[in-house]
């Protein structure tokens, strides 16, 4: 009870094999069991030394040399060596592995060609392990955020002999060997995970928790109830039903912060009349984002007219969309539909969810009122929704995007023509060229300026309709220390601890909490 921390992982992970992991729940488990070259600072998410104690970057920005710590081991005692990293990364890049996030490592020299099958010799990929404690990585282009990529879960190391021996059951408790702060002692699907402190972890002396229990509760009401009943010590962001957020604000348990994710609608520009930029502009200016964020969502989110979130030091966002119904009507007239006359039925599609539905209803009313166009809502179950968006069989669809690392590129890269995550059919040579120039640019300020220009172009051509900027809303018990709001909603749990003397420092506690401690 005292040094045991219980929380909600949020959903059953699809796979917590770092090479195969893709979603937030997968990542939470991976980060407990494995550690990368760098690890995130719990407050700022900046890369701090992890398995590597220091690193150097060559002046041309293309070669990183990582020096691993002395005395790092796997949980079974075997020493961890640079070759472990090299093998793990090549495994991720190997097409036969089917890794979903191989994109993390694509900045590496020849990685993209190897991953797409164009190159079969893995030794041509720019990763070398000249000795047991040195890893040399050569990049295709200078990549300002590479150190963030290196702490992403895809880049976490795995044990070759374990993977080869057990195949796709190597992640089970009893088989899995990791190098993280915790080991996996129990797992049952849809029930829970139990992690025990790993004594072989290099920083074990500073790990105060003895055990962590992670449940996989998907239902938001249930998760919040379990927190209220004292079962969960931490109810992570996204686990509070949005209608309840205003009522949570008065409790000290409630924490909120900015989250680098954007909720938007994507427009299928291959479908008439949405191929006309004036139609798209009309749709954008006819939405009152403030009303949505402040009135409907009760200020639990920020209205947002840009396609990059806040919080990138040195990045100056171009001006975003504002509510201007008169101008919106002008745009529509320019497109040939004055007053909405002759405009075909707009099908607004979203996947089944209360939140998506309410926002869609509000926007439907706004477009109908401000533009005079007919709008029909289409609620679809997940599979059909995915199919429709990827095959460009829609008019306007709800989307969202979460940042992977702390750089605007993670939001801008997906709008390149032909990117698998684009799903709008938008292909703009000028935009792609700006991004290419930015990726070659070594000077950080000029690079940021180029990215901002790209975003300006994106907003000008608007194949997308930004709506709101996400925020994190979580509940943390007063006796839990070491959990902070972070921009990417990543929470390393390694240095979390239970403060038994919290009561003497307490102010106000959530009403419904039974005092079980």
């Amino acid at each position, binding site marked *: 009870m005292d040094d045991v921390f219980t929380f909600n992982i949020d959903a059953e992970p699809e796979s917590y094999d770092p090479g195969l992991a893709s979603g937030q729940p997968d990542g939470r488990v991976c980060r407990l069991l494995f550690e990368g070259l760098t690890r995130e600072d719990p407050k700022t998410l900046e890369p701090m030394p992890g398995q590597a104690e220091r690193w150097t970057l060559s002046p041309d920005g293309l070669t990183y040399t990582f020096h691993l710590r002395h005395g790092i081991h796997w949980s079974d005692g075997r020493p961890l060596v640079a070759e472990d990293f090299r093998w793990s990364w090549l495994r991720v890049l190997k097409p036969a592995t089917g890794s979903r996030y191989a994109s993390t490592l694509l900045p590496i020299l020849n990685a993209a060609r190897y991953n797409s099958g164009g190159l079969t010799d893995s030794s041509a990929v720019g990763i070398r392990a000249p000795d047991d404690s040195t890893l040399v990585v050569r990049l295709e282009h200078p990549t300002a955020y590479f150190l963030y990529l290196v702490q992403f879960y895809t880049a976490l190391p795995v044990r070759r002999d374990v993977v080869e021996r057990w195949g796709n059951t190597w992640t089970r408790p009893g088989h899995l060997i990791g190098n993280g702060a915790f080991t996996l002692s129990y797992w049952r699907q849809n029930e829970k995970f139990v992690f025990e402190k790993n004594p072989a972890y290099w920083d074990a002396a500073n790990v105060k928790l003895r055990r962590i229990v992670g449940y996989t509760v998907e239902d938001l009401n249930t998760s919040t109830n379990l927190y209220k009943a004292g079962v969960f010590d931490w109810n992570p962001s996204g686990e509070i*039903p949005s*209608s309840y957020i205003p*009522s949570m604000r008065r409790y000290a348990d409630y924490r909120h912060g900015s989250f680098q994710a954007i909720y938007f609608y994507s427009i299928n520009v291959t479908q008439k009349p949405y191929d006309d930029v004036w139609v798209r502009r009309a749709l954008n200016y006819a939405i009152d984002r403030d009303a949505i964020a402040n009135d409907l969502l009760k200020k639990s989110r920020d209205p947002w007219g840009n396609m990059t979130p806040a919080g990138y030091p040195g990045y100056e966002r171009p001006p975003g969309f504002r509510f201007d119904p008169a101008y919106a009507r002008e745009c529509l007239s320019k497109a040939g539909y004055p007053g909405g006359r002759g405009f075909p039925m707009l099908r607004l599609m979203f996947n089944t969810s*209360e939140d998506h539905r309410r926002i869609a209803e509000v926007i439907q009313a706004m477009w109908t009122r401000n533009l005079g166009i007919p709008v029909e809502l289409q*609620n679809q*179950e997940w599979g*059909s929704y995915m199919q429709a968006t990827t095959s460009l069989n829609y008019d306007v669809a709800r989307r969202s995007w979460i940042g992977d690392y702390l750089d605007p590129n993670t939001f801008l890269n997906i709008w390149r023509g032909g990117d698998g995550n684009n799903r709008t059919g938008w292909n703009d040579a000028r935009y792609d060229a700006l991004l290419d120039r930015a990726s070659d640019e070594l000077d950080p300020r000029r690079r940021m300026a180029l990215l901002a220009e790209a975003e300006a172009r994106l907003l000008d051509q608007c194949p997308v309709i930004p709506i709101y900027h996400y925020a994190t809303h979580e509940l943390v018990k007063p006796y839990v220390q070491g959990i902070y709001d972070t921009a990417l909603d990543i929470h390393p749990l390694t240095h979390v601890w239970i403060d038994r003397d919290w009561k003497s420092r307490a102010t106000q506690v959530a009403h419904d909490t039974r005092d079980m401690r």
Partner: protein
Amino acid sequence: MSSASLTAMTGERLEGRPQSLWADAWKRMRRNRPAVASALFLLWMSGTAALAPWLPGMPDPTLQHLALGATAPSTVHWFGTDELGRDLFARVVFGGRISLLIGFVGTLVSLLAGVSYGAVAGYRGGRIDDAMMRFVDILYSLPYIFLVILLLVFFSRSILMLFVALGLVQWLTMARIVRGQVLSLKQQTFVEAARALGIGDAAIIFRHLVPNTLGPVIVYTTLTVPAIILQEAFLSFLGLGVQPPAASWGTLVAEGARVMALFPWMVAFPGLALSLTLFCFNFLGDGLRDALDPHDRRDVH
């Protein structure tokens, strides 16, 4: 007199004077106060729902007041408002249009299909019964979600598809129940007697056996009504039923359930509408069965 022979006699009398059983039943129904009250209430609800768009003073169910948000019942908004500030009373009334329609028609279809199918299967027995019941099993086992998705893919959304989707499953258990009853009834002497008299199979099934199964059939039918209404809500989550901003009682109840602790009126009023409808159908059903039953308990003793 045994139920068998009385029914046989009643059946014969049907040939000669078709009015008497129904007129008799009608008289009995009128005496059953809860049934009459229920019928009137249902009529009133249906009427209001049907005429809703033209009723003076009826608020617009889709008019949003975002800044207002969810408010408790008041003189302005009799049932309160939902999170988009829409009048809940109007939404419940308009929601009734879909739900009552589905409740009546869907249940009727399921009743007719289930009863005929089950009675024939039970009466024929043997291999035919096996085959017919296995067909029911097959339909029952197929994953419903996929059937609905495919209906949407191949036929796209329409109210006809909604009824098809609803009808696919509801009649199955009814068929099973009726079959069970008929299996038991067909051994009775009145059936032999009827056959000896030369009455055809169809007549035996529908004029003699089915009326004796009416008790459980009516009960199951009335219980199906809320199930169908809620099933429509499930279908709307799959993209088939009503699409927002329209609502049905099922979708209103589902919405309200999520915010039950915050805005209880959002689930209470649609839920009440649903419950009241069910109660009415039940009293009506009971009344109907009592009225059609050749042996009213009071007569026997």
